């Protein structure tokens, strides 16, 4: 069982509500679910879609073929009809669209009329549509009815009952009239409800799990979801979430809060990050820990505001004037986003540096099912010198020279000792200096002493598939699910493996896993990237000297699908 449902229509028609509800029902029913979205930079109108894939085995990427198309407007039919699989159906409301289709794949469900008749208000048309899709799939309504109760409880019993009736009406209508529906998404064997978590939510959840106490940001797609989620937990967790006047203020506030003793984070997208760049450098000079979530979308400038690209790896690598080390993590799944955010917090605090979580619109907007997070894996250590421990020190120098390059990081005000730091080159006390000798020692401290220790913290890339592959498909960040499913398909006839990098800087050493040897042995090494220039391939070349044999790049702002990726890879393999 592997079914794809696409809901298409204009912005503001309720695509998101139908999609989220269906995805939640499938996850609670015990299915593996993957959802992704495609939308324009507008609040009303245009063309948007929400795609859901449900299966009885793990799914982690979108497919080309659509089994059920929920068309909320004519445009959806015109644009997506050709994506239908042989068993595919289009469900629509002929009254609303003011057009009738007679083909066998069309199912006319009068969403509005049923909503009015059974729910008492046409506003429940989307509930009718949701019920109808479940009917087409041969699924029971109990979980949807339960969800309606949860969502509408606050609005009163009458609203709950009306929505339930609307869902039932849609469901029954589909069951009765869709004689050609051959789907059977029946009950899962020994169903275990799953969590359904999105990319930005996973980053925000990871931050909460890492004790985030301060988050400042300026709204920008695709990072706003992090701020929204953390704001919803502000009081419960004691997190200050502040919308800054601009991104420059956002990063400087986070630096101030971190200097004062709080675990701090900021988030933005490429354009906003361009404004933060001087702040990255400030954090480096003052050795102030900060976690930065950087959501990539196509540039230059405003680019495609709501679409996806992996175009800012090199920006994150080089952002900030001067020379200093940093961590860059690029999660490929919500689970990785959760744990890498935790790792980012832990290492930023441990080494008093900046740690980036590099994600993209695609990952931000996808949702995945998972059993849960193994909370025992969290790394939470308080590295700060506080309270009595600080008072007991005989003296304190914020930037004291040490073997590791890491100086004690104290909380100002907790003792009579003063905490002083400066964006100018400074001495151990934090005061401005001009002399060459101190400068050299400070550069050694910040850069040369910390860097090897930081590099040792970085995990090697993840190998999936044939352990002795002829073909190695390399990628980073959000391509994880796509590459993995493509490798699954191609491994039926080929010796192939995926090499996925989710920890990019310091670039992983080869002592724990000699991935260079693996690449060197392969007949074909392809780097798949959602950008024009192959940024990982270039980083690999710089750091290791290894040249990827081929680059498969995509820079139209749309993600790959499993099918398009497999097709492309097949073409490259054929030339071997």
């Amino acid at each position, binding site marked *: 069982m592997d079914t794809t449902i696409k809901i298409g229509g204009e912005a503001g028609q309720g695509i998101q509500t139908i999609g989220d509800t269906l995805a939640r029902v499938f996850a*609670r029913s015990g299915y593996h679910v993957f959802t992704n979205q495609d939308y324009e930079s507008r609040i009303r109108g245009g063309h948007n879609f929400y795609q859901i894939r449900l299966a009885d085995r793990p799914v982690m990427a979108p497919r080309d073929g659509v089994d059920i198309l929920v068309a909320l407007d004519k445009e959806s039919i015109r644009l997506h009809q050709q994506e239908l699989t042989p068993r595919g159906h289009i469900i629509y409301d002929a009254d609303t669209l003011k057009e009738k289709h007679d083909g066998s794949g069309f199912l006319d469900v009068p969403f509005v009329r049923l909503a009015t008749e059974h729910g008492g208000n046409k506003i429940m048309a989307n509930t009718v549509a949701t019920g109808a899709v479940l009917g087409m799939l041969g699924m029971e309504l109990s979980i949807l009815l339960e969800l309606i109760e949860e969502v509408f409880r606050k609005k009163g019993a009458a609203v709950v009952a009306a929505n339930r009736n609307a869902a039932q009406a849609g469901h029954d209508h589909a069951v009765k009239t869709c004689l050609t529906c051959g789907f059977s998404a029946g009950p899962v064997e020994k169903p275990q*409800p799953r*969590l*359904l*978590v999105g990319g930005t939510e996973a980053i925000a959840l990871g931050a*909460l*799990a890492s*004790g985030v*106490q*301060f988050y400042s940001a300026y709204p920008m797609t695709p990072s706003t979801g992090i701020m929204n989620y953390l704001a919803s*937990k*502000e*009081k419960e*967790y*004691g997190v*200050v*979430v*502040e919308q*800054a*006047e*601009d991104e*420059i*203020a*956002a990063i*400087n*506030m*986070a*630096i*101030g*809060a*971190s*200097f*004062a*003793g*709080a*675990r*701090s984070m900021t988030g933005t997208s490429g354009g906003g990050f361009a404004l933060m760049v*001087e702040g990255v450098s*400030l954090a480096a000079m*003052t050795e102030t820990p900060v976690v930065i979530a950087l959501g990539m979308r196509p540039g230059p400038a405003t680019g495609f505001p709501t679409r996806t690209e992996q175009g800012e790896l090199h920006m994150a690598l080089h952002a900030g004037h001067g020379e200093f080390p940093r961590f860059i993590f690029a999660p490929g799944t919500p689970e990785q986003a959760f744990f890498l955010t935790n790792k980012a917090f832990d290492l930023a605090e441990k080494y008093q540096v900046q740690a980036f979580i590099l994600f993209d619109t695609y990952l931000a907007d996808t949702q995945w099912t998972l059993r*849960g*997070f193994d*909370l025992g894996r969290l790394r*939470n250590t*308080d590295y700060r010198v506080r309270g009595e421990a600080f008072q007991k020190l005989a003296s304190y120098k914020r930037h004291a020279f040490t073997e590791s390059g890491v100086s004690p990081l104290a*909380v*100002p*005000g907790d*003792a*009579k*000792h*003063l*905490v002083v*730091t*400066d*964006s*100018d080159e400074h001495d151990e006390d*934090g*005061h*401005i200096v001009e002399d060459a000798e101190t400068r050299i020692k400070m550069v050694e401290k910040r850069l040369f002493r910390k860097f090897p220790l930081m590099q040792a913290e970085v995990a090697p890339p993840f190998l999936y598939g044939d352990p002795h592959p002829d073909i190695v498909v390399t990628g980073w960040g959000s391509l994880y699910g796509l590459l993995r499913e493509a490798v699954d398909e191609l491994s039926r006839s080929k010796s192939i493996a995926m090499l996925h990098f989710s920890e990019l800087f310091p670039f992983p050493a080869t002592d724990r896993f000699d991935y260079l040897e693996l690449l060197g042995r392969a007949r074909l090494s392809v780097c798949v990237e959602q950008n024009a220039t192959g940024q990982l391939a270039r980083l690999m070349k710089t750091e290791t000297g290894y040249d990827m044999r081929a680059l498969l790049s995509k820079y139209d702002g749309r993600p790959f699908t499993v099918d398009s990726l497999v097709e492309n890879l097949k073409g490259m393999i054929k030339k071997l």
Partner: protein
Amino acid sequence: MPTAEEYRGQVPAWCPGCGNFPILKTFKDAMVELGMEPHRYTIVSGIGQAAKFPHYTKGNTFNGLHGRALPVATGIRLVNTDMTVIVTTGDGDCYGEGGNHLMAAMRRNINVKLFVHDNQIYGLTKGQPSPTTGEGMVTKNVPFGVIAGQFNPLALAVALDCSFAARAFAGDMEHLKGMMKEAINHRGFSFVDILQPCVTFNKVNTFDWYRQRVYKLGPDHNAADRTAAFTRALEWGDRIPLGVIYRNERPTFEERFPALTGQPIVRQQAFQTARLEKTVNEFS
């Protein structure tokens, strides 16, 4: 009680006769009189001659980037409401590079104390016009005179309902000390524009120039009256008012911020592992 000796910092690198010296001396005196020990406050500064200030006294210090002192100060204050947070800055740093942050800080009414050393010129970069430089002043890079209108920081403060807005003069240390103490004791954002002669690059707005023009607001000025305050704020030229021009008692940002009602954030337990399971299950 601390003594003046406890506030002695490094030897200042300012020009002899600089208007910053009396401000530094007055600050130390004010701190002694307030009994404010150096570890209880943090001075945040940016870039410019005034921004070097924290090194020349004692206190927790964050000397950051040009124009960015206020956001850093805001971040510190939001996570540690026990900490007194003072920003020392100049007209270029605060009104030029950091203008957006000034507006935001006034609107938030965050409990930060802002002292602007306003010498109407750029000192560190050697004599370019600042937002408060008078129209027509000739500088090396503006040989035909400044064209842009002069920025009026106090009018801006009144317009933005800044909860404490005052002007002082480096040449009247006793009055300046009073303003500094009032600013620190005020609950909310406090802003003091301090007229500070630059003896090297501003040959127009000298100690004498200011002395001939400044006068102290008397009891006839009602600082709570916003319209009266605006009238005073617009006064410049022949007569320049010193004193509290505008004040109101609106609640501070921190008081209204739901997550800040208890202990300061930095004293709270960051890791709340016990809650996590429940939070994660909200995704089912």
